[in-house]
């Protein structure tokens, strides 16, 4: 049991590469925190610093208000489930489970009882006498989990522990991990690339980018009220559509946007008025919030051309562009294009090249500043924006 605090923690690799850049996170005792972010954003580095496998370049990492910066890994009482499991190949499953207990000089009788208990919990009893090479991927994964929990560590660290498993097994073990963590109540940091794991596993999600924390919060909150365009585009599968737009009208309670020649007018107090936005912004809308409608000039609607369709079971992803045959698309600045993805029930017939109209409800759209930060101009936040530091 332990509370963890990262205080302005940075990691510089020679190069110099700033892998982690002034990260401050408070993790409560017993909390399950999920770390997400694109490849190379410093997730592994962050938890490896907590484990003592990497030195800390600046800042303080503390476990239960005690700085662990200078403690070697063997004295930190953290346990890690590695991506490749890192089971000791020459030891049996029992030997692997016994190793951390032996290193801590647990009395043999106590150790045996503990191993049996963990084996029972993770259904390892029938394979206790096998070597790792004789196990399936899922069994290895469970042994790695067992080795981590057998010694009651203060902190669990998991670095993409399910990424080597097939989808079905992943779903099953994901649920097991959640219930296991709930039962043991051990503070856990879990690194993942997987959207579903990120949204379902943790108490809170921490989204990172280029070594810095972008947003921390409960999954629903981070999804509903992304702090910036990066978080909005990163979470969700596919992520939020971010369409560069020009703000035309600046009257109070009215926002008029220009999207590649299409004009959209919103008259609602729910929308930030034009005067709060620079002349450029990003219009954000989730793929599932784009619902096909009949053309109607009364309401704000997007006219799109269907470029491609991907059928995925009960629904389909329509890849759209704002361009129409009459009006070629104007080139847009920045890394955002006018490519839009909509998630549509597969009962709707879609035809490549044809035009489609989507209604935009003021509640479903997000406006982000189109500057370097791309911060949210959040009309839903009643108080301060949901950014923690």
């Amino acid at each position, binding site marked *: 049991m332990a509370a963890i605090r990262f205080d302005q923690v940075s990691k510089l690799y020679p190069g110099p590469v700033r892998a982690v850049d002034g990260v401050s996170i408070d993790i409560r005792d017993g909390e399950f925190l999920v770390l997400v972010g694109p490849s190379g954003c410093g997730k592994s580095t962050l938890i490896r610093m907590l484990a003592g*496998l990497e030195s800390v370049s600046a800042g303080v990492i503390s476990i239960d208000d005690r700085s662990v910066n200078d403690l070697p*890994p*063997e004295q930190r009482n953290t346990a890690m489930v590695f991506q490749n499991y*890192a089971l*000791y*190949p*020459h030891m049996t499953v029992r030997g692997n489970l016994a*190793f951390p207990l032996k*290193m801590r000089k647990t009395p043999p009788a106590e150790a045996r009882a503990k191993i049996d208990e963990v084996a029972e919990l993770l259904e390892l009893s029938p394979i206790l006498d096998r070597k790792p090479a004789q196990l399936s991927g899922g069994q290895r994964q469970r042994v790695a989990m067992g*080795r981590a929990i057998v010694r009651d560590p203060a902190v669990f660290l998991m670095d993409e522990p399910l990424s080597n498993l097939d989808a079905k097994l992943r779903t099953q073990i994901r649920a097991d991990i959640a219930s296991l963590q709930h039962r043991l109540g051990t503070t856990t940091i879990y690194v993942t690339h997987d959207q579903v794991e990120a949204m379902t596993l943790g108490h809170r999600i921490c989204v990172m980018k280029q070594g810095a924390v972008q947003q921390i919060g409960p999954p629903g909150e981070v999804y509903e009220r992304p702090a910036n365009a990066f978080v909005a585009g990163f979470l969700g599968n596919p992520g939020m559509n971010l369409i560069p737009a020009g703000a035309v009208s600046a009257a109070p309670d009215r926002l008029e946007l220009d999207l590649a020649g299409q004009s959209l007018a919103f008259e609602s107090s729910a929308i930030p008025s034009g005067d709060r936005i620079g002349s450029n912004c990003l219009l954000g809308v989730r793929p599932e919030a784009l619902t096909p409608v009949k053309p109607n000039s009364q309401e704000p609607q997007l006219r799109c051309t269907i470029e491609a369709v991907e059928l995925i079971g009960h629904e389909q992803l329509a890849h759209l562009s704002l361009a129409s045959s009459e009006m070629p698309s104007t080139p847009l600045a920045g890394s955002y294009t006018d490519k839009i993805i909509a998630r549509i029930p597969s009962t709707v017939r879609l035809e490549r090249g044809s035009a489609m109209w989507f209604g935009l409800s003021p509640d479903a759209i997000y406006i982000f500043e189109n500057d370097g930060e791309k911060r949210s101009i959040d009309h839903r936040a009643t108080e301060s924006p949901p950014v923690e530091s």
Partner: protein
Amino acid sequence: MKKWSTAAIGMALPALIGLGLFVVLPFLLAIGLSFTNARLGSPLGIQFVGLREYVYVLSDATFWRALGNNCLFAALIVPGQTALALGLALLLNQPLRGMVVFRTLFFMPVIFPIALVSVVWILIFAPGPEGMLNGFLGWLSGGAWQPRDFLNDPTWALPAVVLTSIWQGAGFQMVVLLAGLQSIDPALHEAAAMDGAGRFRRFLHVTLPGLRNPLIFVTIVTTILSFRIFDQVRIMTNGGPKGATTTVVYEIVQAAFDRAQLSRGAAMAVLFFVLVLGLTLIQRRVFKQHGAVNR
């Protein structure tokens, strides 16, 4: 069973011919010769004499002395050289700058011909206070060391040859073990550290088991090599003093070429082959029981 195609046989043939011509044929000849009284350069005809040469060799004290020395060489060289190579490999596996230079330096003795190495060490072991090792030991002990003639001293000659052999051979083992070290998943060390193992216990529980196969390979090869010791002995001590450093291969060469007793050399060679083969098979069996070979 698959039928061997003509093409397969054709492709294997050059190697098979070479193998037959240079390995199998000479060995069969040696077996044949060992049952005769053949002498090198003798004008007399060759006669079949049955097991006479074997009986002679097996009752010859020099042969047993040579075999005993071989065992002593193996007993000193195998552990000594393996330990040294392991130590070097561990040192040279540190992620420090300029390691390549050191790795090359420590590997260098392997590419020196053993004849050259022997001559260098003859200089090091030179008798009298001017001898390099004597001088060094004298300086180290503040003059208390009595200079001696290492290579002509019945107690020191064999250790001197052992030292030379280890110096020359350790580099090869080091490279094998270094490759083994680098194939150990670093995550295993990290996992062991987080499981509470300090440096020494990580070495014991991660490094050594991870090096199991390279260590077995290196042990078997070094055992065979130390039974085959010849060049150092020929150049440094000529088997002396008083047979203190003689080896079976040295005796074989002595018999066959220096004393022209071709059949006696052949008999010794056959006996020796059977012995080394048996030893290797036993070693392999022992290691296999622990489930490490062929995995």
